[in-house]
């Protein structure tokens, strides 16, 4: 008896299953991240024999210059907006996939949703550039249909950045919502209707609360990377596309100020963690 109890509760038997994943996490994420953490406190990169010493100046730079705070705020706003649009677009799609379509139709639509995952990110963004620029696909098509002339040049604008990011991240929302929606017992929806609830009331009072875990998981999966995104803002946003993520990227690839880039990254990480932990109690109550 004693051995079986220990066997069930102990971590021993689980070790062979856990080790590969944790070994990988340590090597691939923890080590580079630690190195970055160290860099963020250095005056210079310890390369080609340059002298360096420990400092807090890069962290101080964030607070002394209003620029970084403004950019971080802009990035958080961008994250919230993209997440909201993903929810508005993704949830209805997930609902139809999970509860309306069946068989082949469901498979086909599912494939269309996942397709962005299979295409290269840069290709995706440059395709949008072709569509959004002046004289591009959208401009030409609309002017061919409409009797009057309008100029559509969304390229290098805030909406272009939103469009590109929503396109990249909406599958996450569809997938997480799909999982929770298809787990809802149909009898619950029928029960609500039999009690006199309209379709809208059923959606608001039964389906949405039960799908909330999926909506939240999707939101976290989208919000966190969007706040740090740099590719879409840089290519589709042009001069308007300066965000916190693009500034970090600059430090690494253009200015070669790795310590500042690393410090800005860790501040972002801290801010995101604070936002998530502050919203956790509220989100739990919503559930």
């Amino acid at each position, binding site marked *: 008896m004693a051995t079986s109890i220990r066997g069930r509760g102990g971590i021993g038997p689980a070790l062979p299953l856990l080790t590969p994943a944790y070994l990988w996490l340590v090597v691939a994420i923890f080590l580079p991240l630690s190195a970055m953490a160290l860099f963020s406190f250095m005056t210079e990169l310890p390369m080609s024999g340059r002298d360096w010493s420990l400092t807090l100046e890069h962290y101080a730079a964030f607070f002394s210059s209003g620029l970084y705070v403004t950019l971080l705020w802009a990035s958080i706003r961008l994250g919230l907006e993209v997440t909201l649009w993903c929810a508005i677009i993704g949830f209805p799609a997930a609902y139809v996939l999970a509860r309306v379509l069946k068989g082949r139709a469901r498979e086909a639509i599912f494939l269309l949703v996942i397709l962005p995952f299979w295409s290269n990110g840069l290709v995706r963004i440059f395709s949008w550039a072709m569509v959004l620029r002046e004289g591009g696909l959208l401009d030409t098509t609309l002017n061919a249909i409409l009797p009057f002339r309008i100029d559509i040049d969304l390229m290098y604008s805030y909406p272009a950045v939103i469009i590109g990011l929503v396109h990249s991240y909406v599958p996450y929302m569809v997938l997480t919502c799909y999982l929770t929606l298809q787990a809802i*017992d149909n*009898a*619950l929806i*029928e*029960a*609500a*209707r*039999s*009690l*006199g*609830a*309209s379709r809208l*009331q059923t959606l608001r*009072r*039964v389906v949405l*609360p*039960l799908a909330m875990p999926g909506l939240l998981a999707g939101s976290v999966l989208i919000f966190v990377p969007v706040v740090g995104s740099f590719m879409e803002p840089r290519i589709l946003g042009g001069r308007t596309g300066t965000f916190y993520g693009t500034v970090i990227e600059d430090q690494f690839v253009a200015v070669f100020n790795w310590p500042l880039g690393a410090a800005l990254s860790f501040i972002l990480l801290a801010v995101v963690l604070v936002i998530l932990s502050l919203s956790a109690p509220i989100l739990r109550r919503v*559930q």
Partner: protein
Amino acid sequence: MAEVVVDKVSRSFGSHKALDEMSIAFPDKGFYGLLGPSGSGKTTLLRMIAGFDFPDAGRIAIGGEGVERVPVEKRRIGMVFQNYALFPNMSVAENVAFGLSVRGETRGAIEVEVKRALDLVQLGHLGERRPHQLSGGQRQRVALARAIVTKPRVLLLDEPLSALDKALRVDMQIELKRIQREIGITTIFVTHDQEEALTMSDRIGILRDGRLVQEGPPEEIYDRPESEFAATFLGDANILRGVATGNGIRLPDGTVVVANQGTKPAVGTSASCAVRPERISIGEADNATLGEENRLKGRVSKRIFGGNSSTYFVEHRGDIIKVHVQNNGGTSLAEGQDVILRWSPESAVLIGM
């Protein structure tokens, strides 16, 4: 409260006819049991009365109002689902309050009604619990309270007791019946459990292949089944087949079985005779007494002990006849023993082909 009338309702799924010109009148305030094997159309019929599905043809009326095109939420019905379907994101009280609050009733009125409904099902003290904290029987009661709190015109029960264990099921049968009487609501109850249908229903309808085979009070169907299917599906029955003689049938071996129940088929046509296993008495071959009874010789091929009663399988010219005997202390018969089976003509039901 209202009577429910289903008039020549048909519904097909592809080439399968789930309901075939089904007509039933469910009496006001009655407890009606729909009984049938799976695929007989009983659940389809219930879902159509609820409004989850719509008939291809025919009419459905609740309290005289045609509802066959009315959506579920406007039909004012209450339904209890097989797995209860309680909302997991709400407390017990919120579950019960749901139907009232979507109708826009005031908070005060809702509170009073919810309390009354929970007291009726004896769960007044558990309002704050979540559904996952309740036992199966308690969930069942909450589902019932939720269905009746809106004062529906008809209560629909879809195999509501099938998920409970035996002892609890018997308790709930009594409880359900008490509540139904107390609020006097027209109730339609779908089950495949014949015992449940017999104990609870005022009337039973037996369904097969989308058609109504027979309906009436439980005793009437049990004592006078009109078809071999009704006889064997509702309770146990021995079916003897032969040729109609007017007031009975002649078996292939020449024995005449006299039956006073059922409708008399034309003389000379093939007919059968149904006898309930508990109506047959079994005795040793040599001490059989004479009387106005049907008798049949046979040999015990098997005996199954079932606690308070035993079942004998008696072979008569290749047919097996089942006999239930109360275990009241008498000596039991051995397998292989010759016996005489006796039953009165009152216990035999004639069934035409």
